[in-house]
């Protein structure tokens, strides 16, 4: 299996993010200007940034598989932290919506919450083995 160095991983991640930004900008431009009327095509365009999403998913999985055993452990611990923290935060907000009238939020907020928790989990896990 190809071993992804930190630099190779960062380069590929940057490439996928650039593609994501391009697809997002392009699809939103076409949709917002009503240049695409056919619904299936509008849906496909609207979802097109997720092509880059899949690319990033497989990149991260490849990074995990090519990491050594301690790095895998750190990644697993940080993802576990992110998984649990996101559950706690989103559930808490859901309960606040029901009980305290917290405003509706877009599903887009779930990933920033999980990504932030992943980052925090990574810092915590890294420090355990320094």
């Amino acid at each position, binding site marked *: 299996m190809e071993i992804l160095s930190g630099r190779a991983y960062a380069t590929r991640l940057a490439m996928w993010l650039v593609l994501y930004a391009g697809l997002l900008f392009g699809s939103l431009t076409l949709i917002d200007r009503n240049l695409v009327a056919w619904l299936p095509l509008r849906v496909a365009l609207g979802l097109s940034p997720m092509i880059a999403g899949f690319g990033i998913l497989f990149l991260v999985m490849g990074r995990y598989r090519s990491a*050594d055993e301690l790095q895998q452990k750190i990644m697993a611990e940080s993802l576990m932290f992110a998984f649990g923290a996101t559950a706690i935060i989103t559930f808490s907000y859901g309960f606040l919506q029901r009980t305290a009238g917290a405003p509706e939020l877009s599903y887009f907020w779930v990933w920033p919450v999980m990504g932030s928790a992943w980052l925090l989990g990574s810092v915590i896990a890294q420090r355990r083995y320094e």
Partner: protein
Amino acid sequence: MRNCLRVLRAERRWSQADLAGELGVSRQTVNALETEKYDPSLPLAYKIGRLFARPIEEIFFDGEDAGSSAQPAIPVSAGGLSRSDLQTPGTVESSVGESPVRP
């Protein structure tokens, strides 16, 4: 689990990066092993043993084998280690056959 990896590496005048390269792991992993914050898998432990041409029980030892002493139980810098160097009196029989490395 305790180990004498740092001493063995120093004997060969390797940097952590050198050892990491030999083992195919990151320098961070070598550091975590040397500071005993991470215990290697059995395959990695065997790889380390092969690299230093020593049985893994001469490199890794658990607290039970080594007693309560804060120092490693073996004179790692003396070279030519024998299994008896690893054991404190009275613990040989009970520890023979046990793997000192977690899978």
